[in-house]
């Protein structure tokens, strides 16, 4: 989403500078105001972000293949094909289902774990480490581990339950299993954010509330939850953006199966572009997903702004 960031030219510089130094060029003035410090970043930004974005758009208007040979300009044909491509919408639906299932779970579980680790008396370091450690695993390790846990006959889960639960064998179960594995894997990061937020709540709030006769639940609902609201917002945004890009663990555990019922849209794009050599079509798909992600982000920004505005009025 960095693409949405405004061009990193120092804001305001062109308006204030001309009056003071009328003799210098615009570029010279920018360089004067720290441009050289930004330049290395700008080069990378241009080469690895702006340029691929632009060339991706160009690819999507061509029947571009992986080798870049025999290319043909076809206008909007790729987009037309994509809009009628059921597989795109199916896989996009899977990604959205995954996001909708995972995000609330992460928020709830991370908050719960943070409360536990914050309030526990003994061995704090151990709980922090235990909850955060899975986040450090590479996705390949995670996938191998959980594939074995979910194994129908020899897996730990089915052995413990003494039942053959179709963890990865049926569509709905498989999606749930992916969410569960991902929750275990990534909850540590949100947990850490919540823990920091909890530690930043001043004790005197709780003391005052206790003096006024508030019980533990009231203190939680009226002090803790509102005090970590900003962090909750941050976690929700980060989680949505990360989940919309989900790919590796699902691909590695189950290749998006069974019957493509967990295949995320990123996997479909890769299949079109790299398995099927059709970079042009894959670029068009990417742009459609890109627009959707931007839309989600904008809606989210708009909601936040609206809420803060309302708050401002009531005060």
């Amino acid at each position, binding site marked *: 989403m960095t693409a949405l960031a405004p061009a990193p030219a120092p804001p305001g510089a062109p308006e204030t500078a001309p009056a003071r130094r009328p003799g210098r060029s615009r570029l010279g003035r920018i360089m004067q105001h720290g441009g050289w410090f930004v330049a290395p970043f700008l080069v990378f930004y241009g080469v690895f972000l702006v340029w691929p974005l632009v060339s991706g758009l160009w690819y999507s208007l061509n029947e571009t*293949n992986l080798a870049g040979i025999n290319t043909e300009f076809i206008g909007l044909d790729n987009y037309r094909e994509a809009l009628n491509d059921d597989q795109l919408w199916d896989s996009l639906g899977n990604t959205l289902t995954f996001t909708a299932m995972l995000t609330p779970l992460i928020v709830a579980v991370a908050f719960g774990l943070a409360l536990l680790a914050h309030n526990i008396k003994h061995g704090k370091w151990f709980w922090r480490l235990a909850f955060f450690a899975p986040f450090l695993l590479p996705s390949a390790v995670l996938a191998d581990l959980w594939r074995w846990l979910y194994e129908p*006959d020899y897996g730990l889960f089915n052995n413990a339950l003494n039942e053959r639960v179709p963890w*990865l064998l049926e569509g709905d179960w498989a999606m749930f299993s992916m969410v569960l594995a991902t929750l275990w894997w990534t909850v540590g990061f949100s947990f850490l954010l919540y823990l920091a937020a909890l530690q930043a709540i001043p004790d005197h709030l709780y003391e005052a509330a206790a003096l006024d006769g508030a019980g533990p639940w009231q203190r939680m609902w009226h002090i803790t939850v509102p005090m970590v609201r900003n962090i909750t917002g941050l976690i929700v945004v980060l989680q949505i953006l990360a989940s919309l890009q989900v790919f590796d663990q699902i691909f590695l555990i189950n290749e998006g199966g*069974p*019957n493509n019922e967990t295949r995320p849209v990123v996997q479909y794009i*890769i299949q079109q572009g*790299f398995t*099927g050599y059709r970079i042009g079509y894959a670029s068009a798909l990417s742009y459609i997903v890109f627009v959707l992600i931007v839309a989600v982000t904008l809606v989210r920004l708009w909601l936040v702004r609206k809420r803060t505005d309302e708050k401002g009025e009531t005060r």
Partner: protein
Amino acid sequence: MTHASLRSLPPPLGRPSRRGLLRGAAGLGAAVALGGSAACGSAASLAGGDRRIQFWNLFSGGDGANMRGMLDRFRAEFPGIEVEDTTLAWGDRYYTKLAMAGAGGRAPDVGILHLGRLAGFAPGRLLDPIDTGLLAEAGVRREDFNATLWDRATIGGELYGLPLDIHPSTMFYNRAACEPAGLLDAEGRLTELNGTEQFLDALDAVREVIGQSPLGWNALMPGECWWTFVGLYAQTGGSILSEDGTELALDDDRAEEVLAFMARLVADEYAIPGQDLVGYFVNGGGFVLFGNWLLVDFRTAGLDFGARPYPTLFGTPATQAESHILVLPHQEGRSGAADEAAHTLIAWLVRNSLSWAEASHVPAYLPILEHPDYLAMEPQSEYRGAMDIAAFDPPAWFCGTSSRVQADVGVHLSAAAMGSVTPAEAVRDIRATLRSLLDTRNPFGEGTAS
């Protein structure tokens, strides 16, 4: 320009005599010198890159170690040729790199490709044809190969891939499970199982012995369902696409019959989907249907097992197979000593593929396939018959190892096997998918028009 270097190749199997070796090296040196002067090549090209061959392959497992061992032997026999081998990660990433390198004309001198991928890899544009004259001088001819295999690597009259091996779908069987079930002959080999009923009876008997599901076969994986389908559908005598790979030739009834059988394997719990096949076999499983390379894992686990091609369940013997072929990725102005050295290398590799066969693949070079040392390899030689009944992917751009067809058609096969759709529904979906793939322009363009 002579081909002196190739004429003096050592005999295929014996170790080369010292004199032969020296002559070979001298011949190569002469060839380089001649090539240089004839082409008025620059001094730099003469001194530097000419006899250096870059070889890209995708062998990372047990066969990777094997390939490196073979290359070391090649280096010892041909000190004049410097082989620089690079092992790249298998799958899409390998093909991505190879395609891009070929497109730029700065590809490695020699590469490995899966035969099924050849039709979609723009032979003539991304791949250069192999000089069969040079190969013949090195003692490698069409007659030395299964004709079907060789001809599949020939497109528009030009040979684009020299087959190194085939790797067929194999049925592994556990002797400890099959013997009490009365399924082994006097030599400890699995008796012939013909037709689905006989096969299922055998599975039932093994289930009795081992007290768990008798077959390791992962219906959850689209690619594995594709292999099974290609083999079993070929047994019905049908073909999926027309011979030129441009028309749909699927026979719905036959396809449904095969799919109903695959679904029965799962529904009657002959095979539990999602199972780790090595884990299953090591834990006393009965049979496993998978590519021959699992042999390495099973052997490491110290199991007593045999391996044979798929049993004939639908009339005509056939087993799915892929093949590693040696290719010459496209280079601008491929010629001269480096080109000859590349031909020397690929000819040498197929002629010395005996050690390659140890890593479980079936050697494509017939003199090796009939070599006593190969025949003595157990259970490798037990499935050598796969060469004559190999069913390859249809010759279309979207086919081959880890291709679109495996993912897109395989998923419908898997859905049918798992019982989430009926065989008839799956066949309808397969038709629709194949039709849309056929309607999609070959991304790299038609090959030979370079």
